[in-house]
């Protein structure tokens, strides 16, 4: 199927709303390498970071192909301005402590798994292929983070408090996962994209079940924060990009 240039542009934008989540979360996890509480979690989180980075590359290579004009995966990863990154706010939140790392991962993984499940039925063959590969990895991510939510929630009094604190703080970013940009709406309509609103209820059910098993309280927020998917980020994002883009900005147009 050949796409019109307008369709290609839309599809490229749609891919960014998925791929940028993986890039920014991989970047956050990359900060932790060598600083974890146990060698085994260091290895596991690095592994998750690597999986996400691999997925990012597949998406960006596809987006670069759609964009044409000799664009590369690195142009997309490193040479956009902050407003052009479409990741949700959740994944850019900092590694405040291990409870936050796990809470962020878990709240994202449950969503990510459901998204890829749907993306496996996309009308776009490339996206299907990426989803088929990615879902195996994400199913492991979800098990890892879910197990740690239970361990920390139902561990000691201190760990329960810390885990609850992280869940409470990050909960306000969960609603944005189900916010749909124009690109997402259009792509869902033509069958290549996913209508994320269809699994919102299922998401909160699954998350709540794990939290309850972890003896944690499910937050009841009235207010949520969004913006990342439209390129309006939290103040953390600029610093993430400063590190991410440092080499490409300082030494432009070079091969590495």
């Amino acid at each position, binding site marked *: 199927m050949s796409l019109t240039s307008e369709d290609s542009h839309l599809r490229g934008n749609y891919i960014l709303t998925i791929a940028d989540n993986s890039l920014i979360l991989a970047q956050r996890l990359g900060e932790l*390498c*060598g*600083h974890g509480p146990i060698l085994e*979690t260091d290895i596991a989180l690095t592994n998750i970071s690597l999986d996400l980075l691999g997925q990012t590359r597949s998406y960006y290579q596809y987006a670069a192909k759609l964009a044409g004009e000799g664009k590369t995966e690195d142009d997309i990863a490193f040479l956009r301005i902050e407003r052009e990154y479409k990741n949700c706010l959740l994944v850019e939140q900092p590694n405040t402590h291990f409870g936050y790392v796990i809470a962020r991962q878990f709240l994202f993984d449950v969503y990510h798994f459901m998204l890829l499940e749907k993306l496996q039925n996309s009308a776009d063959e490339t996206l299907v292929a990426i989803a088929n590969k990615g879902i195996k990895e994400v199913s492991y991510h979800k098990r890892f983070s879910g197990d740690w939510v239970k361990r920390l929630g139902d561990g000691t009094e201190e760990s329960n408090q810390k885990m609850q604190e992280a869940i409470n703080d990050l909960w306000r970013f969960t609603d944005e996962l189900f916010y749909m940009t124009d690109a997402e709406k259009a792509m869902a309509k033509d069958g290549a994209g996913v209508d994320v609103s269809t699994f919102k209820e299922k998401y909160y059910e699954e998350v709540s079940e794990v939290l309850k098993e972890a003896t944690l309280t499910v937050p009841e927020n009235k207010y949520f924060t969004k913006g990342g998917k439209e390129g309006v980020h939290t103040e953390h994002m600029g610093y993430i990009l400063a590190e991410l883009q440092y080499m490409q900005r300082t030494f432009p147009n070079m091969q*590495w």
Partner: protein
Amino acid sequence: MSEKEIKNSGAERSRSLEEIFEARIARDEKIEPKDWMPEKYRQTHIRQMSQHAHSEIIGMLPEGNWITRAPSLRRKAALLAKVQDEAGHGLYLYSACETLGISRDELYEQLHSGKAKYSSIFNYPTITWADIGAIGWLVDGAAIINQVPLCNTSFGPYARAMVRVCKEESFHQRQGYEIMLTLCRGTEEQKAMAQDALNRWWWPSLMMLGPTDAESIHTEQSMKWKLKRKSNDELRQQFIDQTVPQADILGLTIPDPDLKWNEETGHYDFGEIDWDEFWQVVKGHGPCNKERLGARVDAWNNGKWVRDAAMAYAEKNEKRKVAKAS
């Protein structure tokens, strides 16, 4: 039997055990954790293997420093994978140590208190991207020269761990060299970055192979136990002979005005190593000793509540299982 007789027969038994043990090593048999071994053999292996494990874990820090700033997605993924491999090496080596009856927590305690050492090379800073290339090329290159003979060392768990470690290290070295090659084929700025990294990492890499034979206190015993097959000076010469032609291919200059090929010996002659600098770093006063150890101590202390939670949860789960079964 009198007390004296008992003592004598005990001494004789241990002497004969020791003779059997030495004979096994001489026959190139592997010593396994449950086999009898002299206490000194056990201690020496704990010391060397844990030092090696600590080096892997501390070594994650200078390279991990560049994960978030790697210049391309491909390089970022390769660096992440490399640092992950190092964590894996640490894990095998700690496990190999544990077979000798010491726990990982005790080994960490020795690292954190400064009692145990780690490779002094990791106390140098990684200040440019080219340092990541130079570490792979030179530091992993020197490590391989040190480690390949250990694949045949007498203690079974160590020898087996080293087979895997060496395979991965040799991959890392090629990767590091490829980073350098890309820089040297790049712009003037990139080539200057590569030269600068070589200038800073060359001498510390030579020091990595250990003090000169005259100063090395553990060499003789380690040779006997096949924990070491060549002396530090021999290994250093091997490293230099192997690395100089690689620098030539890169078009980089090794920062040693005394370096020259010696037709007679068939080796490169090289200049004086600054051993004062080496001992300064070994004794804890290198550019990053405080930061490296500080980062590990922080990770350990900040992670206590996580480890406590994991233990508490495991105990609760066990109780739940028992309650369910009864």
